[in-house]
């Protein structure tokens, strides 16, 4: 599903160059639930952004389903993200003036999904995250955990085969974190999704098939099986 080779990313911090990712090799198979953990600054978010085509590497290559992201033009890359990848962020990223259902509808609109299909899919996605009755609420009428579940519903509504989540529970209490970890686990088990999740959170780590530890831009451990 995902293949990264010698993936490298340098950032320019003023006059200094910072090596955020130092030649990472990584293969993720379809249907895997992979957690990437490590200290802050270890390169987790940089790696996730490169795997999702949200950022471009300084060196090396990433392919998703055989498509090389490093050579795609900006608009083609945006199209691939819309089509293949659902994103979840630590700060939820919901639009404040749209209801939960409208936020979930956004990817379907961007993909020009016919109207007849949209409402049912939005409802199904909200039900899958346990928010079937909250579609009409605005984000600020929902708790943090509920907002993150809306963001997950948005990530899966268009049937993207890959979900990338960056620290999805870092703003949540432990009960909400359990709920999010369980939902992600169920999606992988029942729908065959592939999930790559960066986290500090032991609750999320405990639910994974495979954990990859990053330190200073290197993979220092890769463990399968809980």
């Amino acid at each position, binding site marked *: 599903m995902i293949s990264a080779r010698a993936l490298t990313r340098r950032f320019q911090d003023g006059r200094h160059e910072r090596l955020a990712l130092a030649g990472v090799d990584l293969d993720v198979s379809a249907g895997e639930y992979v957690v990437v953990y490590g200290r802050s600054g270890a390169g987790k978010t940089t790696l996730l952004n490169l795997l*999702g085509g*949200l*950022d471009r590497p300084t060196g090396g290559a990433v392919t998703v389903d055989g498509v090389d992201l490093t050579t795609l*033009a*900006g*608009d083609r890359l*945006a199209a691939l*993200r*819309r089509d293949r990848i659902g*994103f979840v*962020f630590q*700060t939820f*990223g*919901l*639009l*404040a*003036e*749209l209801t939960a259902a*409208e936020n979930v*509808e*956004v990817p379907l*609109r*961007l993909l*020009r999904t016919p109207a007849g299909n949209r409402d049912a899919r939005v409802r199904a996605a909200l039900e899958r995250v346990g928010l079937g009755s909250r579609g*009409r609420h*605005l*984000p600020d009428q929902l708790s943090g955990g509920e907002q993150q579940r809306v963001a997950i519903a948005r990530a899966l509504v268009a049937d993207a085969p890959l979900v990338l989540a960056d620290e999805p529970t870092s703003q949540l209490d432990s009960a909400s974190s359990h709920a999010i970890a369980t939902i992600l686990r169920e999606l992988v088990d029942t729908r065959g999704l592939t999930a790559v999740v960066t986290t500090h959170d032991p609750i999320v780590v405990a639910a994974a098939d495979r954990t990859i530890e990053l330190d200073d831009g290197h993979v220092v451990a890769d463990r399968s099986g809980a």
Partner: protein
Amino acid sequence: MNGRIVCRSLVKVFKTEDVEVVALQGLDLLVEPGELVAVVGASGSGKSTLQSILAGLESPTAGTAEVAGWDLTSLSERRRREFRLTTVGLVWQQTAANVVPYLTVAENVAVPLLLRGARLRERRVRLADTLELVGLQELPDERSETLSSGDRQLLAVAVAMANSPAVLLADEPTAELDTESSGRLFAALQTVSAAGVTVVVTTHDPLVSASVERTITIRDGRTSAETIRRTAGAVGEDFAVLDAAGRLQLPPEYVQALGLGGRVRLVLDEDRIEVRPEYGRRGPAT
């Protein structure tokens, strides 16, 4: 486009389990089409509640609120959605609340157009127009998260303007920006207003309130004062606001200077009304 805003005796009460908070208590407001006004007030004064009502996100408890001919007191859910998608544009203080981080500049502008069901030709025209309006025309494929915070807030204005609203509401839009970015954002709001769109900005930013013709002060859930500037940057002329029920809020410094409180004496003269302490300045006679 007729983005007139009329609020009369607007009341909003928030009820939680056993607490009632009166956020607006009889607010009056008139903003003419194409006007650019600043709304100022301490936190808790009710200005954010006012924005939420004008945006169609909250319903008033009593009184009337009319925006561009829409009566916001009695909207069905379907009509409310139509109002939000066709008539008002919103810019929030937190840039994260205005744009989806993983979408590009062009995709973010497309979202409100697609939610309204706009066709491809219109989407192309509106994308080009709104990006030009805010000066982001070179960056359609840039991801919004990689923009500077100033550019991201300009993108928020482009998103808010996508459906050609009659009214643009901006809630502390410069709060997270440096002076240079604030200046660019305010210039974009002025351009929007010059095109005939009514712009209401709630702000703490003296740079913004000093640059608009009219600043409305809200205190304790009511419109309490207005400052009118004939030219930008000039010293403003201050007015108090008499509401529909004949109530007037005296500036706190006036009240303090004369030690006013409780009852006061009112004296009607030919061309003025005087407000005096009940017992003169020395307190009750002994």
